[in-house]
């Protein structure tokens, strides 16, 4: 501790710059992770934060909600599968709506009131209780989707405009990065007919299932897939994780994050290796006059920990500042667990990459002190 802190105290700029570099890189990791979470929530928050345990898709839709319709026979068969307590229609569609005095795209989910598929993250107001009521995504409240606002589906020729009144706001229920409304299935049907007046029947996109108490949703989902031809049952988490857009976004971010996770410890390890080479003389002298190798290695590791933790503190501060700005509307928030987990991973990796410097310290031969090669001031 004595040697480590003395050196850091006398080389504040050098260690400060490294801590700053580590801090910026850790900040980028934290920001990218939060950005990913925000993006995913914007893409499929509606699936993540609804009450169905299992969503049953048309098998040909390949887990894509937009491309899925479930036929009445299939819906009936799904309800009969063992483990299914309630099976109800859940419709989803993107519509041009008039909200806040301007036309914009919005996603409307229609679910059976009181049944599975209702939003679970209500933060203000209430759930819809009658036709023409809807819960809106809180992120879009200022865009004409606040409580009391009316949202009108712009009809196609021949259709009839239908209007919803926002009675509640729920967080993280966006879908496809658009303002999102949850209304009753009848309201959804009306919206569908407004844009497609010739439709003879409005079919649900998926069937929302609530499993019986104690049943495993995964087992029930698999049972539905096996029992009902042309369907694919997915648990809520599977529906989120395997949603086509989400998977590719996650994959892209994973590559970026992997690079950052490699760069931070490599920068740290390289820095300490260079520093160890630079102070080889002092280390050789200390070994020659009787310092065991252990304290010198400990001193190095203490410095690695101090630099990474300082960087993490800096990164958390920057992250907090960024969160104040909302991260470009993606709802970035500072949560302790991701920050701690990221710091821990970076710390462990930095310690691992510092093993090269540790090895260098352990290989110091005190006899080098007599050659003068290792003892320069």
């Amino acid at each position, binding site marked *: 501790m*004595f040697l480590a802190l003395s050196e850091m105290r006398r080389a504040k700029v050098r260690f400060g710059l490294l801590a700053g570099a580590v801090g910026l890189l850790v900040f980028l990791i934290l920001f990218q992770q939060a950005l990913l979470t925000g993006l995913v929530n914007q893409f499929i928050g509606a699936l993540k934060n609804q009450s169905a345990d299992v969503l049953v898709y048309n098998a040909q839709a390949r887990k894509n909600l937009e491309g899925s319709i479930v036929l009445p026979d299939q819906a009936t068969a799904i309800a009969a599968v063992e483990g299914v307590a309630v099976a109800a229609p859940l419709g989803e569609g993107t519509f041009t709506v008039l909200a806040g005095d301007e036309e914009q795209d919005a996603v409307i989910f229609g679910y059976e009131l009181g049944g599975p598929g209702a939003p679970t993250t209500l933060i203000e107001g209430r759930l819809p209780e009658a036709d023409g009521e809807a819960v809106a995504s809180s992120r879009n409240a200022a865009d004409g989707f606040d409580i009391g606002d009316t949202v009108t589906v712009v009809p196609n020729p021949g259709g009839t405009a239908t209007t919803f009144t926002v009675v509640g706001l729920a967080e993280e229920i966006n879908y496809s990065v658009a303002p999102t409304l949850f209304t009753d299935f009848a309201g959804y049907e009306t919206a569908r007919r407004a844009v497609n007046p010739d439709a003879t029947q409005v079919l649900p996109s998926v069937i929302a299932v609530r499993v019986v108490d104690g049943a495993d949703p995964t087992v029930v989902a698999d049972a539905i897939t096996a029992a009902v031809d042309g369907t694919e049952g997915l648990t809520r988490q599977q529906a989120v994780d395997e949603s086509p857009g989400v998977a590719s976004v996650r994959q892209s971010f994973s590559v970026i994050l992997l690079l950052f996770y490699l760069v931070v410890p490599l920068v740290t390890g390289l820095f300490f290796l260079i520093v160890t080479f630079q102070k080889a003389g*002092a280390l050789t002298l*200390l070994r020659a*006059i*009787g310092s*065991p190798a252990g304290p*010198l290695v400990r001193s190095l590791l203490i410095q690695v920990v101090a630099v990474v933790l300082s960087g993490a503190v800096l990164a958390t501060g920057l992250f907090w500042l960024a969160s104040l700005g909302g991260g470009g509307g993606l709802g970035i928030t500072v949560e302790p667990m991701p920050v701690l987990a990221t710091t821990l991973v970076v710390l462990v990796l930095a310690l691992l990459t510092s093993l090269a410097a540790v090895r260098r310290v352990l290989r110091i031969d*005190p006899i080098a002190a007599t050659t003068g090669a290792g003892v320069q*001031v």
Partner: protein
Amino acid sequence: MSSSNPSDSSAHSGAAVLATGPALRLDGVRKVYGTGENAIVAVDHASLTVDGGEIVALLGPSGSGKTTLLSIAGGLLAATEGTVVVGGEDISGHSPRELTEFRRSKVGFVFQSVNLVPFLTAEENLLVVSELAGARGTVRKQARARAKELLAELGLSHRAGNLPAQLSGGERQRVAIGRALFNSPALVLFDEPTSALDTKIGEQVMELIQSEMRSRGTAAVIVTHDTRMTHYADRTVRIVDGVLGLGDAAGDDH
């Protein structure tokens, strides 16, 4: 004294011998690098006794084996053959870990180059080994008091908080001497202590070494190739091609 031709060192010594028993005894020490036809004998059956409080100059040309002999005496290098006893401790069979402990507690070093830790102050350079050895509580307090006392004796109290880069060459060498004396060793080994200094400063440093060693009764072996400095020693031992020659009384070279 004894070298290759053992004899009684006290007969030649003009120094006050304060300690009892030899500070250093080398008996038949041999150091060979490599094996077979490639073997190089760096030190060849060297025997030398340095009494407590005695100052011995080890004189020889470059490559004569004087630094190798010094390294063996200081536990930096293991002898191929022979016995090495320092302050009553036979280190011939010591493990690397035991040699590290020995160097920390029983012997002091001043190396050829300026040899301080650049990011530690003068006082911290004295304290560093005791700190790295885990000094705590009372031991740490005693160590700090000892460091201040040594710096005062060396006329460096006002420089205690200075980094090596802020000290002159002579001051740095004085701090190095202080560090070598910090653990109250039986023996201090100096490797060309004046080679990086001009003549005037070199003589001041040698006077300091002489006075500090004598006042403490600490033995010293000073490796040098500068015959102008040997008169500060009680006697001079020559080494050529790894073989110790006859000892000379102090001033014989002048």
